[in-house]
């Protein structure tokens, strides 16, 4: 990037000071990319395995239950909730609301707290012996 001119810079990770709103903004993009590739990829693999018989589904189940597989699935669950809550925040901001510094920061923090809480609830329910 050519930084020698005195023209104003557009928003950029290395230029702006980090804050909750900015973390949530870049997380929205990162989780969106993760959901696009890993999320939809695993959904497709899961459906394909379901349709393809017992061996195929067992192979999927084995990969999903592997520690690495669990990390990916838990990560995708969190990505989904983070992207969902952050998406709601964007829809609110699309109506022109929530731009006041305090409100904006609070909403940003709430998306992170909410996504972590929902992910913990889902996986506690799945792994915590409720099933």
């Amino acid at each position, binding site marked *: 990037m050519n930084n020698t001119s005195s023209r104003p810079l557009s928003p950029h990770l290395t230029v702006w000071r980090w804050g909750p709103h900015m973390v949530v903004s870049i997380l929205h*993009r990162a989780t*969106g*990319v993760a*959901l*696009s590739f890993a999320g*939809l*990829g695993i*959904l*497709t693999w899961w*459906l*394909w395995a*379901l*349709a*393809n*018989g*017992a061996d195929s*589904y067992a192979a999927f189940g084995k990969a999903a239950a592997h520690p690495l597989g669990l990390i990916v699935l838990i990560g995708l*669950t969190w990505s*989904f909730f983070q992207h*969902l809550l952050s*998406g*709601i925040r964007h*829809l609110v901001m*699309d109506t022109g609301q929530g731009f006041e510094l305090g409100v904006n920061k609070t909403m940003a923090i709430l998306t992170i707290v909410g996504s972590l809480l929902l992910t913990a609830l*889902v996986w506690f*329910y*799945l792994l915590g012996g409720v*099933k």
Partner: protein
Amino acid sequence: MSLGDSATPLGRARGLGSAHHGGEHWLTERVTSIALLLLGVWLIASLLLLPQLDQRTVLEWLRAPSAAIPMALLIVIGFKHALDGMKVVIDDYVHGPGNNFALNTLMLFLAVGAGALALFALARIAFGTVA
């Protein structure tokens, strides 16, 4: 949007500018996001409510129209939303017209291809050709 004084009255009324489009992508991304909010929560809630996640239980659930239809919607709308989102990311970071077109086209092929795989697997399940 500002159209100069040279715009014809009809041009000003249409308010499209020289590109003649642009609003659809932005609006589609938001509309699909609302649909995915519902469908994503539906998928997670459904999986949590199933007594087990073995192949027989999942197939029995997914075979019914009450699950197969939302799953079909989730696949189509999910890949569409992922494609629209990836276009924003690619357009932000990949500026060369050749590379930009190549990457966006690759994403289109990936999304349509993987979406077709997922829909085909779902069709096999829903129309009962899976043992």
